């Protein structure tokens, strides 16, 4: 956290605090939950894993709860449907509600009316679309803020979706660990590809952002070598990328690894996803209005 004197406000790089301090922590948490919920649903739908879809539904509910805690007037939440024309938060809220509603119907049908395959497929596809929308909107909500240059990048939505997908795949791996071995291998293959993609996207994002403006460069410096470096290198890089990739590559060459090692990779990936959301939100700084010196 940057310690500022009152007279330095907007005269030096001023960190955004509204979405990271106090109640603001809950929106970072909501973005994380939305990402993994969407990622898990898409992955679970691909593998036709009902328990995975149910956990994704639970995570979406948790996202909604986290959102509510973030609001200082939660009882007025219904007003958040009012302006989907221009507000990404309003759009996102609609996506979450539709995802929860459609998934509820699909889960009920899958559990109690398994013969209604057409209806199940229709609702699964629709829920899948909104799972993706729920996952990507968190990135758009952040990247839309042109005042914060490190956020204002077209790569952010892609980054958030990919990160959500890695978290979702990790949870699905935990769910499927005791199941069919062939499906497990297929899932691990997908995880390897997505993890490497995530590492590349993070690298491209940071590299690209460095050249967008001085404020963004300052934010990236803070991330990789300043006050946020421990969060970035330990949380995002070590837990989110290195540990899962090393374990994932080990499984490829060794064949079968212990469930303990797989659990480590799963937990590590989830911690990494959470750390990424916090790191990016914490790195947001505003361009000073006056030159400080």
């Amino acid at each position, binding site marked *: 956290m940057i310690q500022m004197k009152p*007279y330095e*406000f*907007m*005269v030096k790089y*001023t960190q*955004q605090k*509204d*979405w990271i301090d106090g109640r*603001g922590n809950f*929106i970072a948490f909501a973005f994380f939950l939305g990402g993994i919920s969407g990622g898990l649903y898409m992955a679970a739908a691909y593998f036709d894993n009902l328990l995975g879809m149910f956990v994704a539904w639970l995570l979406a509910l948790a996202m909604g709860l986290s959102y509510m805690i*973030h*609001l*200082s*007037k*939660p009882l*007025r*939440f219904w*007003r*958040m449907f*009012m*302006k989907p024309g*221009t*507000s*990404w*938060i*309003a759009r996102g*809220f609609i996506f979450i509600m539709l995802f929860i509603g459609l998934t509820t119907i699909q889960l009920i049908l899958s559990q109690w009316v398994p013969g209604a395959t057409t209806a199940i497929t229709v609702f699964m596809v629709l829920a899948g679309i909104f799972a993706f929308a729920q996952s990507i909107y968190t990135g758009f*909500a952040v990247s*839309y*803020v*042109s*005042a*914060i240059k490190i956020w204002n990048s077209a790569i952010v939505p892609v980054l958030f979706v990919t990160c959500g997908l890695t978290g979702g795949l990790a949870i699905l791996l935990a769910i499927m660990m005791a199941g069919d071995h062939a499906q497990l291998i297929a899932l691990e293959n997908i995880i390897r590809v997505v993890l490497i993609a995530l590492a590349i996207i993070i690298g491209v994002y940071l590299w690209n952002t460095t050249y967008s403006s001085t404020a963004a460069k300052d934010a990236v410096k803070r991330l990789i070598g300043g006050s946020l470096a421990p969060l970035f290198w330990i949380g995002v890089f070590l837990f989110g990328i290195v540990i899962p990739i090393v374990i994932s590559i080990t499984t490829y060459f060794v064949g079968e690894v212990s469930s303990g090692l797989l659990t480590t990779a799963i937990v590590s990936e989830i911690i990494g996803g959470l750390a990424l959301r916090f790191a990016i939100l914490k790195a*947001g700084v*505003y*361009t*000073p*209005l*006056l*030159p*400080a*010196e």
Partner: protein
Amino acid sequence: MRWGMAIELKRCVGCYECVLACKAEHFLPPDIFWNRVLIGESGKYPAVTKLIYTVRCNHCADPACVKVCPTGATEQREDGIVWVDEDKCVGCRYCMVACPYQMRSMYDDGKAQYFPGQELTEHEKMGRELYPHALGVVQKCVFCKERIDSGMALGLTPGVDREATPACVINCPTKAIHFGDLDDPNSEINRVIKERHGHPFHPEFDTDPSIHYVD
């Protein structure tokens, strides 16, 4: 009609009277500022320039805050004034995050007082009756719209008549702040902007501010 300001930087002495006038006018709680004075420096010794900017919501013609508000609580009137309907605000703070000028505040500490541990001052007590601030919603400069509206109802002209003009403008001891209609080519504010080459603060933010600064 579009209300705006022209601020003469050479006249501003950084006395903070505009900040205090706003605090008093709206009975603003501690740590809530609808306007601020920013002080910086440019250049290197011996060629150093001290920069003093009195800043407040720019009531932009293309405001980021209005677009991002999910509930429609942040609204823009026909006269360009951007304000927050405290009955609609859910406190998501998206508008605070989106404002490149950082001119919004969240009032979330109802117990804050100017002299903690002591009784409320008479001014604070009066403020809680006359100008109650809703807890947990976003606040910002409203160009003293209540003064403008009541003044115009009496046939007064904002920017000319004291009773219809924002508090920060009428209380400026050096008359550095001009207020008026930007759409009126004959207004005082337009004359100042045209003759003295007024420019908005950070036009690169691309929000078309209604406040212009003249050197």
